[in-house]
């Protein structure tokens, strides 16, 4: 009997929701089942209708409370301002670091020089 090898409605139901948008195709046994099963045919038709309607929802827009656009642009301004401040801060830190390094270098030279000077009398 061919029907012995056919899947049940429930087994087909799993595949129907995937097949509705064409992403998956039913395997041949499932397709044979659907061809002979009015209930599964109806279910497949329901999925197709549902998916068509879901796609159409994208054009349905929610109405945001007034002021959202101003808030968004304000947040962007604020973020850009803080970013600039951070960058400026980093630049200041960089310049400060350079100055400190230079100062350290200079004082190092002074120490060496003074040590050198101190050694001189000993050598003399």
């Amino acid at each position: 009997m061919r029907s012995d090898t056919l899947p049940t409605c429930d087994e087909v139901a799993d595949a129907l929701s995937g097949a509705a948008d064409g992403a998956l195709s039913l395997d041949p046994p499932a397709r044979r089942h659907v061809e002979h099963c009015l209930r599964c045919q109806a279910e497949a038709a329901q999925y197709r209708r549902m998916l068509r309607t879901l796609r159409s929802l994208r054009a349905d827009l929610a109405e945001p409370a007034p002021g959202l656009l101003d808030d968004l642009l304000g947040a962007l301004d604020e973020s850009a301002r803080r970013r600039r401040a951070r960058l400026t801060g980093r630049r200041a830190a960089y310049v400060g670091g350079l100055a400190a390094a230079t100062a350290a270098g200079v004082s190092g030279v002074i120490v060496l020089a003074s040590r050198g000077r101190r050694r001189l009398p000993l050598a003399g």
Partner: protein
Amino acid sequence: MRRSNPPTPDEIGGLVEAARDGDREAFDHLVSQTYVETYSLAYRLTGDEEDARDVVQESYLRAYRGLRRFRGDAQFSTWLYRITANCASTHLGRRSRHRHDELDDELPDERVGGPGNPEAAVEAGALRDRLQVALGDLPPRLRAVVVLRDVYDLPHEAIAAELGISVSAAKVRLHRARRRLREDLFAGSADGRDDGFDESEAGARAV
């Protein structure tokens, strides 16, 4: 909800290019052209006006910072949907430390705003209206996947990446979401599968 009158792809493309070159005004314009749609997606994902506002704001901040990484061959709207999905997921995940409603939450069925009342839903008229209600009734983690896939047409891979789940998990959720939506929409109709859980009966009928 109202019907949209979206800007043309060319308009958007020009603005994106200018904004990527550092034209801040162009980006502001881009925001004003797209924010209602972004808000609509955020609202669908979060089910809450306040959350949707937060998500939209975070999304545009991230879009602005990441604009240089946007590849011109992708659609700007798709790119923005992905960012919004990711922000919504993060936002609800953060919030769910206090409440159980994150997109990735395994605890089901916080029924938001939806009446579990088929008669009222049918009376509301069009399939579209009933679908809105049925979507609101889905748990957030199922709703996110079906909204992103079937309403906004994001590929499975993108959905999985933005929600932080595997592709196979995304597919399973989509499948479950569709099943529940269909059952919600068509329950009680003459051709509805209202005995879908009775395997023995279904099996008996098939042979």
